[in-house]
């Protein structure tokens, strides 16, 4: 009986270590890295695409105001106190006959800041997932093992004896300690991802209708320029049905608009919200597997990529067609 107790006591630390290491090894941050990485890249692309679309809205609005100025419906003046030697800024104001003023160059700061905040959040998630803290801690402990051996040897030399510790034992202890510490840090990373996604998810779900509406509003403004171009080319062709060039221009305007309509769908933000919800649930061990979350993220990434590609191409092709 005494022997059995001794065996139990002796095996207890090993059992604890086994339980601890099994628990720690269960959820590696490496598993989530690709999904978090892809989510962050896609979010950044969606944000960039939105910002570019919003610039079109602002440029288009400024152009409408300029047209009103040229037609004499409004007049341009300076913002009071601006454009002087001691002023902080210099800005044109547009005034209508009732005296209502609007700036010529408007900005939508809050929606942009919200988008940037979500992109920054995704980048922060990425920083947690890709942090090499576990490897660094393991490497530091391994380096410490070398120092301990050197220290032991030096102390032994001072005392005039041989080293007190077996080098192999020090290495083995350091390896175990390094592995456990590395796994502990890994667990901290996974916990940080869990907490962050759980905190951010309600915010992202609440932001979804607003982001969708903002994207829809921006997209309809971009579309308006193309719709006008199609109308103009349709009419030019109607007036000269035998003119091959007119037919080609009409066809091209239609094809261009079709590409834009199919590429600027605001569904990208819907996909972002679904992807984030699935990632949150997968991290929390709810009913969503990591594979499902990765598939939703991939869907979002594809939409974000194609929207970004299209918006960049539109920008490069220089603005929506001129109004006729």
């Amino acid at each position, binding site marked *: 009986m005494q022997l059995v107790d001794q065996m139990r006591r002796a095996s207890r630390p090993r059992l604890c270590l086994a339980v601890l290491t099994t628990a720690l090894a269960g959820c590696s941050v490496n598993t989530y890295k690709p999904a978090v990485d892809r989510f962050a890249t896609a979010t950044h692309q969606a944000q960039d695409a939105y910002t570019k679309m919003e610039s079109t809205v602002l440029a288009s609005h400024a152009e409408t105001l300029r047209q009103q100025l040229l037609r004499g419906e409004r007049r341009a003046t300076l913002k009071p106190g601006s454009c002087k030697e001691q002023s902080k800024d210099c800005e044109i104001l547009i005034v209508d006959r009732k005296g209502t003023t609007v700036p010529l160059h408007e900005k939508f700061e809050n929606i942009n800041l919200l988008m940037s905040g979500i992109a920054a959040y995704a980048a922060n998630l990425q920083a947690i997932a890709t942090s090499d803290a576990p490897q660094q801690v393991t490497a530091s402990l391994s380096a410490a093992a070398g120092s301990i051996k050197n220290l032991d040897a030096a102390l032994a*030399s001072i005392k005039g004896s041989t080293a007190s510790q077996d080098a192999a034992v020090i290495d083995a202890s350091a390896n175990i300690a390094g592995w456990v510490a590395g796994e502990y840090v890994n667990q901290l990373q996974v916990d940080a991802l869990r907490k962050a996604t759980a905190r951010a998810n309600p915010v992202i779900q609440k932001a979804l209708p607003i982001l969708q509406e903002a994207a829809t*509003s921006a997209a309809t403004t971009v579309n308006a320029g193309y719709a006008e171009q199609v109308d103009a080319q349709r009419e030019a062709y109607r007036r000269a049905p035998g003119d091959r060039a007119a037919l080609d221009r009409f066809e091209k305007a239609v094809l261009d608009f079709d590409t834009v309509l199919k590429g600027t769908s605001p569904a990208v933000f819907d996909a972002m919200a679904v992807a984030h919800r699935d990632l949150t649930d997968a991290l929390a061990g709810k009913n969503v597997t990591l594979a499902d979350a990765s598939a939703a993220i991939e869907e979002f990434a594809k939409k974000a990529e194609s929207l970004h590609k299209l918006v960049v191409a539109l920008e490069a092709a220089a603005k929506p067609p001129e109004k006729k």
Partner: protein
Amino acid sequence: MAQDAQQIIEIARATRAHLSSLQLDLEVDIEAIEQTAFAEDRALTPAETTRHDQLRAALGETHEAFRELGFVTLQTLDSSTAVRRLLADIKDVNRQIESDLHRLQNITKFAQTASSILDGLAKLAAGLASLA
């Protein structure tokens, strides 16, 4: 979602639907004038041309209205309480993640410091041993 943002979105959706429906009506009328003349293999009569021009001008105004609606919707959403609140929430989320990131960095620094101290001690002891 706060009430004000919900209202802005509903108004924008309803206005877009109204404008789209108006565009469809205008297009049907334009198409009817053009098809009638084409079926009879003739040009538009002066009356048809006037009507056609009026309808096209109205269609042009709907494009302008879509532009203006997009701008006004973004402007009102941008200044809505809901967007400001979400902005504060996401900032708060980011503050907490940054604090977790600092924690990870601090652990790494601590392990590196401990390793450096041991290394320093080993070197010091080695120096003492060479003196002994």
